[in-house]
């Protein structure tokens, strides 16, 4: 542990990695909470994999792939959102198709990009240790957008997530709010890609909120706890991967996965704790 802190004070890449973990946790704790309570992890997975298509096209055309990711994330959220609103019973088929086609598009364009070879593995599995100050600025900007939108529209998002029909009766623009929510989730995925890559992004999006949901009384509590847990998993993943020389993104996901599996035990213990205290 001491070795890690010494390295942290010496190497800026580790400091950036830690900051990236904090920024990613804010976005994923908030947006991931909506993914879990609204049960839209398939839709979120579809958006994540479509982003590769946009990044591939951005590379091919010579644009910054990070900006390409933002634009393609928003477009993917709109397309998949509209599909999920209109496709009805065929929703999972259409989203599955978009998921695969988006990814295939990205692979083809990256392969055809002239000049230099892009490391596809970095997109797919991320590398938090390669985060640059520019990446951190973009992540902070996206975090700011997600926080602002959630603060302004919290009660509407809550209403749409809890009971769409009632929200509609009260005159809320339910479809528009749903699309906005998907766009926030899409921006969050862009933030998370740097940390764990496209393939593992869903894990970091849903595991901390899924654990928090067991203990939280309200959506706000669930978000706050998910943000805190995300930070903890990111930091722990960084420390463990540093000492055991493991891939950091995958280590973070494995720690989050273990916490998810242990959460029911913790929940049972917490329920029993007051009773045990009462006996004493």
């Amino acid at each position, binding site marked *: 542990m001491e070795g890690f802190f010494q390295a942290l004070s010496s190497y800026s890449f580790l400091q950036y990695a830690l900051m990236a973990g904090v920024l990613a946790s804010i976005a994923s704790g908030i947006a991931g909470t909506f993914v879990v309570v609204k049960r839209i992890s398939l839709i979120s997975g579809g958006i994540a994999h479509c982003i590769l298509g946009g990044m591939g096209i951005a590379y091919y055309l010579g644009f910054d792939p990070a900006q390409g990711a933002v634009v393609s994330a928003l477009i993917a959220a709109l397309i998949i959102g509209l599909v999920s609103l209109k496709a009805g019973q065929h929703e999972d088929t259409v989203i599955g198709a978009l998921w695969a086609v988006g990814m295939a598009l990205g692979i083809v364009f990256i392969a055809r990009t002239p000049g230099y070879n892009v490391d596809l593995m970095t997109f797919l599995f991320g590398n938090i240790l390669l985060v640059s100050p520019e990446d951190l600025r973009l992540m902070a900007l996206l975090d700011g957008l997600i926080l602002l939108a959630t603060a302004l*529209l919290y*009660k509407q998002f*809550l209403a749409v997530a*809890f*009971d769409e029909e009632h929200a509609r*009766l*009260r*005159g809320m623009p339910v479809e528009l709010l749903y699309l906005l929510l998907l766009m926030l989730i899409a921006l969050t995925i862009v933030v998370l890609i740097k940390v764990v890559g496209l393939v593992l992004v869903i894990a970091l999006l849903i595991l901390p909120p899924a654990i928090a949901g067991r203990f939280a009384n309200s959506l706000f509590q669930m978000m706050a706890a998910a943000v805190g847990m995300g930070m903890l998993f990111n930091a722990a993943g960084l420390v463990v991967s540093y000492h055991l020389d493991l891939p950091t993104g995958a280590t973070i996901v494995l720690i989050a996965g273990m916490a998810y599996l242990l959460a029911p035990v913790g929940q049972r213990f917490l329920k029993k704790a007051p009773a045990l205290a009462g006996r004493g």
Partner: protein
Amino acid sequence: MMEIVEVTDVDFSYGTGNTLQGINLRVAEGEFLGVVGPNGGGKTTLLKIIAGLLAPTRGQVRVFGRPAARCGRFIGYVPQFADVDLTFPITVRDVVLMGRLGFTSFLGGYREKDEKAARWAMEQVGVWDLRQKRLGNLSEGQKQRVLIARALAGEPRLLLLDEPTASVDAEAERAVVQVLRKLRKSMTIIMVSHDLQLLKDLVDRIVYVNRKLRWISEDSDTSLSSFLQLGN
């Protein structure tokens, strides 16, 4: 007395065959109307059409003289228990405050007047003390009263209830009935229920809905029972 619900020649279809056909219904202000009928007979559909949540495939629905779809702010709707996600992490207070959507500013949080209206609604149904509890941790009867409080928070003139006493125990049913007795003095109510005894004790008139609508004669227990048993 002024008619506030006017359903005229309404048909409704979910795609295959008519769920409702040729429905005509008038409900006067201050009236308490009971709706009975077999499962799948179209009771919930009729309630949703009156609430403006579903558009009829033919015919016209006017509530307070306007098209139903534009009357949401005057209507309180209590859905069937099973339609609400009771595992959702949400406090009683947050559920009831949702009844204020459409009355408060679109951006930002709720205002003081919304908090006051929500408090009034929670006190009406006796759940004020539970306001910080998670919805999923309440008893069935308490959950049902929370959903009624949400509908009341918007200070509705018309309250629509879809089987509010289904899947609650006898004690919870008594609590819900007590609330309804109090509310009937101040608003028009339409309630779907399978509980004949409950309806006979509470409502002014009863309609039977099974694709078509038929009025149940006011003083005939036999007529009411036979309708339900035979599924006419």
